[in-house]
């Protein structure tokens, strides 16, 4: 963890660094002993794994409770106080459950796919500025990195569907491929709007550029529309209702993970929720000011009060709000059909995204931006 902290500190002080300096600093900051390095590495891995599973379990618990209250019921109550240990029990059970590979499946790919699916959201977690000083890596090409790596996420699903040797999995994987690749476009267009506004691709840079006000409203209509587009497109990227056609239960039993059991299925489950956190965190960072507190123009007293809340809390609150909205969608809307999904992307969101980008460009060119909030 010390490693992580040093990296974060480095990130905070020096925002223009290359992979070379990254490596130098990494080497400088740890003791020059192979065993100790290995020890720290192991510690970091265990720490990150623990953190991730905690994050996943917490999100799953929240989802179950929120869903229950949407539906006039209670949700888990019997394992631990308020059912808090429910997801822990689920995890433990899944870990010790039989790990099954279908006889005619492509064994190695079948076993690899869940890890690939989990990899992408975890890598993206490294880019997110959680607080002024807490960020694993602030790349100056952050947005580019996100779009590049984010597009890779579909590989895990495709491989899972293909290697399972099951028709439902295959259909699900194909649907997921088509869907995620399509919606990546809209998501990217929405990101570009923010890049235009802030003039940087570094995520910390983007957060800092929102000091005067968050892009969701400071970017005129363009910022708000980009936020909506990004919300919809990222929900689609997550394969969550109303865009959960890759695993639509009533159609494809369980879609691409039909043949997965035990730990590997748990990885898909975890990946979905970590992905949700990542996407929500990105949304908060790009449009809702990241760890910036909420300020209203001249209200100095109010602003000072807001400043007392630590930035980490602000970040978590915003992320949670976005997560809630995504969950809210899921527990309200029915699922789209596959061609309607494509229709929505290619005939509605994509033209809207382009138009929006154009508007944003006009806003930036004509220097309608920035205008101070509340005046």
């Amino acid at each position, binding site marked *: 963890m010390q490693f992580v902290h040093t990296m974060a500190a480095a990130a905070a002080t020096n925002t223009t660094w290359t992979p070379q300096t990254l490596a130098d600093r990494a080497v400088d900051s740890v003791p020059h002993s192979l065993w100790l390095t290995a020890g720290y590495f192991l510690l970091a891995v265990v720490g990150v794994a623990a953190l991730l599973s905690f994050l996943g379990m917490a999100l799953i618990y929240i989802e*179950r409770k929120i869903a229950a209250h949407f539906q006039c019921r209670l949700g888990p109550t019997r394992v631990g106080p308020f059912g808090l240990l429910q997801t822990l029990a689920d995890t433990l059970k899944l870990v010790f459950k039989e790990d099954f590979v279908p006889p005619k499946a492509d064994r190695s790919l079948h076993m690899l796919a869940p890890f690939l699916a989990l990899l992408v959201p975890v890598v993206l977690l490294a880019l997110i500025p959680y607080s002024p000083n807490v960020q694993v890596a602030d790349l100056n090409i952050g947005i580019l990195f996100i779009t590049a790596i984010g597009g890779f996420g579909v590989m895990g699903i495709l491989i899972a569907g293909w290697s399972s040797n099951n028709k439902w999995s295959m259909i699900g994987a194909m649907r997921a491929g088509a869907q995620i690749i399509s919606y990546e476009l809209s998501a990217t267009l929405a990101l570009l709007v923010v890049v235009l506004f802030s003039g940087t691709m570094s995520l910390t840079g983007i957060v800092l550029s929102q000091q005067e006000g968050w892009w969701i409203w400071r970017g005129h209509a363009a910022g708000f529309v980009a936020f909506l587009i990004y919300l919809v497109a990222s929900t689609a990227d997550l394969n969550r209702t109303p865009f959960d056609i890759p695993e639509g239960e009533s159609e494809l039993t369980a879609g691409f993970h039909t043949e997965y059991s035990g730990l590997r299925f748990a990885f898909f489950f975890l990946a979905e929720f970590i992905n949700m956190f990542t996407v929500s965190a990105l949304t908060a960072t790009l449009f809702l000011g990241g760890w910036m507190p909420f300020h209203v123009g001249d209200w100095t007293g109010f602003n000072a009060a807001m400043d007392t809340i630590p930035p980490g809390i602000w970040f978590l609150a915003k992320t949670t709000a976005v997560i809630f909205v995504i969950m809210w969608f899921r527990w309200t809307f029915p699922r789209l059909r596959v061609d309607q999904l494509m229709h929505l992307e290619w005939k509605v969101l994509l033209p809207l995204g382009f138009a929006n980008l154009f508007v944003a460009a006009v806003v930036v060119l004509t220097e309608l931006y920035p205008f101070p909030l509340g005046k």
Partner: protein
Amino acid sequence: MGVALGKLPGIVERFPGGAMAITRLDAAINLARSNSLWPLMFGTKCCAIEMLMATGASHHDLARFGAEVARASVRQADLMVIAGAIVKKMAPRMRLLYEQMAEPRYVIATGSCAISGGPFMYNSYTVVRGADEVVPVDVYVPGCPPRPEAFFWGLLTLQRMIREGETIREPGIRRKPVMAALPEDVSLHEIRAEIRAALANENVIDVTQAANQKPWARKVREWIQRASLR
């Protein structure tokens, strides 16, 4: 069994205190398993409405037990709730579903049809008289159909069995308690010691073996073989 569990007891028990650790681990695993029973969406008849849908609905809320994660995929389910009559045409398919489930897997037979053929026990040319002719059943929940509460009671009964049942030393060997609960209005004298003695021998089951002894197991093998030859 699960990841890295096959040889774990053998290795750990060599160290001092290993046996104790394994026992503790057993208790933890069994506790987790008993509290995370994800049912398979499998219902054939009226009981499915009560067992799989009404229990999950707001008034009864299966989610309280952590069991609302009904899986459509067999691989991810722990609990097969046999709700409804099993007919000869369905029996091999149900057997196949059972075999596709990942260990440990539990079966609850709910309603008269699934327990004994029930209303269709006599004069019916298709109904299998009891799901236990097809798959090994852990808990029977009688009723026609049982109330959702009765199903919850069955679930608690199953949880009790899981907590006491299996160890990672002998995976697949399951110990069932003799009585789920003392029936109402009945004194201990009536549930005689003999019943306990008589049933105690039979209630230690090797699940895998018991499964293979069922009449439909052979039929399913033949059926799969025939299907795969095509």
